[in-house]
């Protein structure tokens, strides 16, 4: 095996080892943190469904539907004003 390859193998072993070691520590730490957090603030304020990657109403872009809805409202208002 060329020295380059062996360097690569070493890097892989150390790398995957570190990744697993770090995430294992993180799992443990997260469990402890959650336990403490739930003792401090028992009642969850976010229902499970709410979990998602999409940002909240404030930050997300309006969908075409919503733009349509808003535009309609504005149009109605303008019509009303005339």
């Amino acid at each position, binding site marked *: 095996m*060329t020295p*380059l*390859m062996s*360097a*690569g*193998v070493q*890097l*892989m072993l*150390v*790398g*995957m080892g*570190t*990744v*697993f*070691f*770090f*995430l*294992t*520590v*993180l*799992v443990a*730490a*997260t*469990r402890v*943190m*959650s336990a403490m*957090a*739930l003792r*401090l*603030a*028992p*009642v*969850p*304020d*976010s*229902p*499970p*469904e*709410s*979990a*998602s*990657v*999409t*940002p909240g109403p*404030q*930050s997300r*872009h309006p969908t075409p539907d919503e733009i349509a809805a808003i535009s309609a409202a504005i149009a109605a208002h303008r019509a009303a004003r005339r």
Partner: protein
Amino acid sequence: MELIQQLWQASGLYQITLGQFVMLCVGGVLLYLAIAKKFEPLLLLTIGFGGILANIPGAEIATGDGLLHLVYVVGIETGVFPLIIFMGVGAMTDFGPLLANPRTLFLGAAAQFGIFATLLGALGLTSLGVMDFSLKEAAAIGIIGGADGPTAIYVAGQLAPNLLGAIAVAAYSYMALVPIIQPPIMRALTSEKERAIQMVQLRPVSKLEKILFPILLLLLIGLLLPTAAPLLGMFCFGNLMKECGVVDRLSDTTQNALINIVTIFLGLAVGSKLQAEVFLSASTLGILLLGMVAFAVGTASGVLMAKAMNRLSSTPINPLIGAAGVSAVPMAARVANKVGLEANAQNFLLMHAMGPNVAGVIGSAVAAGIMILFTSGL
């Protein structure tokens, strides 16, 4: 009249090289994929257009004092743009599913095997004399397997700027191809019965947990692997701004105006690395090939890890969500959900898959830290 001759000699038609012509076509293909196929349009459109600008003969937009070169030096060489994007991604990420089921972090760890397998692959091709990648370059190529754009660009900018264009294009292209690459692998490695496994409803997660997690994550990475701290630090900062609830106006701007502005210039700057003389080389082909391998291996190892965990633990895990461990947020999670529904129409895996999905982002940032630590010194 010699002015006309001067005009002709300054024209693109006179100066264009075959390579530039090819790259203009490549840029066109990227625009086509972005617009017609909606493949990661935010990045492939900007990268593709930047690539076209970079290959206009004689315009010199991507060299010297040209706009794209200035943007590249200021934003990518410094690592500023990918870090800001990562902050924005953090501000759009919800760790809820991960906190509800921390075990899924292991899936995000396993999927990183794709990174290191690709590293070996790149070195193997070099040993065979097919390619000629240094350890640094091989490391940067491997990160494609992280299926995470900003991480790949950040690492490539640090370790192998000359390959940055090819690496970024490969990373975003394959992220867009996830719905095509992953399902066959997922089906091949799982039985109908396994794919139909229903998972237990996720517990609700409290606001306090969501606020503490990014801080915890940053402290751990700081204590164990500081070279990953810039990436994960900005990621955690964005996430904390989102979750803490007291700086909504900052979080709002981070998720919109700021990330959009940086995305535009990041894409153009990456595109500036698509200059024919840099991009058209055997190594680019090698990178595209190896990137594909990276995604496949990462997907497989995530699925296999999930199956292994099913052996060891009583609470069942649907192995499909292991595939989401490669990150490619949120595409990979959607794929897991879709394949799961095919096997069992009652089986909604999306939320369960979001855990390994964001875990994959952390995992590949850790892998990036390792690569930078052990190779940047060389």
